[in-house]
Every structure is written in structure tokens, then in C-alpha cells.
């Protein structure tokens, strides 16, 4: 299982499409930095195939005032959870 990190907003870059196209059936996606904008309900349709495998970083959501505005499908993890996700994955790929 590979952990994919995405730091671009889906509203401003096509990077999310590349990441999603490269993901295997068990891979996980963690949204960080501006990538957390993907956790908003308006972007939820992008990630419908990722049930239980979509994560967003709490600290970056909080820094943008979005902590209470996330779609339910996004699992919110803090930086300790980020470390755990890297432990559980065989490797990590960053998309930027």
C-alpha cells in the first residue's frame, strides 16, 4: 500500500488528477497544505472512489479556518496521524 501526499488545491491545479490516476486500489491519499481544500464538500465528488482512504491534515485545515467545513468522507488526522500513515504504508509518494 502506498501513501500519496497531495499539497495542491484541486481548484487551482490538475495535480489531483495525476495522483488519483496513479493510485492503486488499496492506496491512501493524504491532503496537506493547500491540498486540504480538497476536503471541502464542493470537491467531494473527486474522491468518491476513495471511501475510507481519504485523509486530511488537521493542522493545515485549522490554519485555513476549514476544520469545521470538511466533507464527511475525509478522515481528519493530526501530524502524529500523518506519521502513523507513513508507518503503515510501504512507501510514500508526494504530488506537487
Amino acid at each position, binding site marked *: 500500500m502506498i501513501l500519496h*501526499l497531495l*499539497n495542491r488545491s484541486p481548484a487551482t491545479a490538475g495535480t489531483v488528477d495525476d495522483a488519483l490516476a496513479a493510485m492503486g486500489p488499496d492506496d491512501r491519499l493524504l491532503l*496537506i*497544505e*493547500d491540498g486540504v481544500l480538497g476536503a471541502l464538500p464542493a470537491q467531494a465528488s473527486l474522491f468518491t472512489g476513495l471511501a475510507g482512504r481519504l485523509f486530511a491534515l488537521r*493542522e*493545515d485545515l485549522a490554519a485555513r479556518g476549514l476544520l469545521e467545513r470538511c466533507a464527511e468522507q475525509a478522515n481528519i488526522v493530526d*501530524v*502524529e496521524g*500523518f*506519521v502513523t500513515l*507513513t*508507518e503503515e504504508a510501504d*512507501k*510514500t*509518494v*508526494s504530488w*506537487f
Partner: protein
Amino acid sequence: MRYALLVQGGPYSSQASHSALRFARAVVERGHRLDTVFFYHDGVYNAARLAAPPQDEPHLGDAWRMLHDEHGTELLVCIAAGLRRGLLDEREAARHGKAGHSLEPPFELTGLGQLVEAGLSHDRLITFSP
């Protein structure tokens, strides 16, 4: 586990350095070994010896140095990326006839081979880019 980080974003121009530092602290807090941080592209500016940000702002260079002092983390700077951007240690400054040096230990100028080595020898390599 042994962790390595790759930092490719410049300080104060993208979030990459701050994200990497926050992750680095969480890694050692968890009890893992953070053996290597490799600075590449604009990330090499993290190693600037003369950086003097305002005192009420985070000092990224000092924070990396503290990580080295407390946890033995190697701070490796790509020499090709560094020389292009004016980041030279004493030896390189002398070799290029420069009046002063802009990089000093614990940061070390190294080749890209060290990044490949880090990817092979550590359990995890996490990339933080702009």
C-alpha cells in the same frame, strides 16, 4: 524505523520547509530515528548561515540545527543546487575565490548520490516540495 526527509521548498516562500520540520518533530517524538534530511532545489536556502529572520518568527535554520544537536540528524545539502544559489562552505568558497562562506556545519554539502543512498538505506523517505 529510520526516516529520511527530502526538502525541496525554500524557506519563507512555500510551506514545504515548515511542513517538513513539523513532521520531523513528530517523527522523533514518536520514537523513530530521523537520520537524514536532504535539502535540494530551493530547499538548500534552509542552510543559509547568515539567515536572520525577525526574532518573533520561526528560525528554520536554527530549528534544523537543533534537530541535529538533539537527535544526530544529518543535514545534507545538494552541492550542485547549493553552489548555483551561493551556498558555499569554507572549502568551496576558497576553491571559487569567494570572500566569505554561507554554509557551515552541521549542514554539509554532498552529492545527489547521498539522496539515492538515503532512499535505499532508510525505511521511509518523505518528500516535501513547494
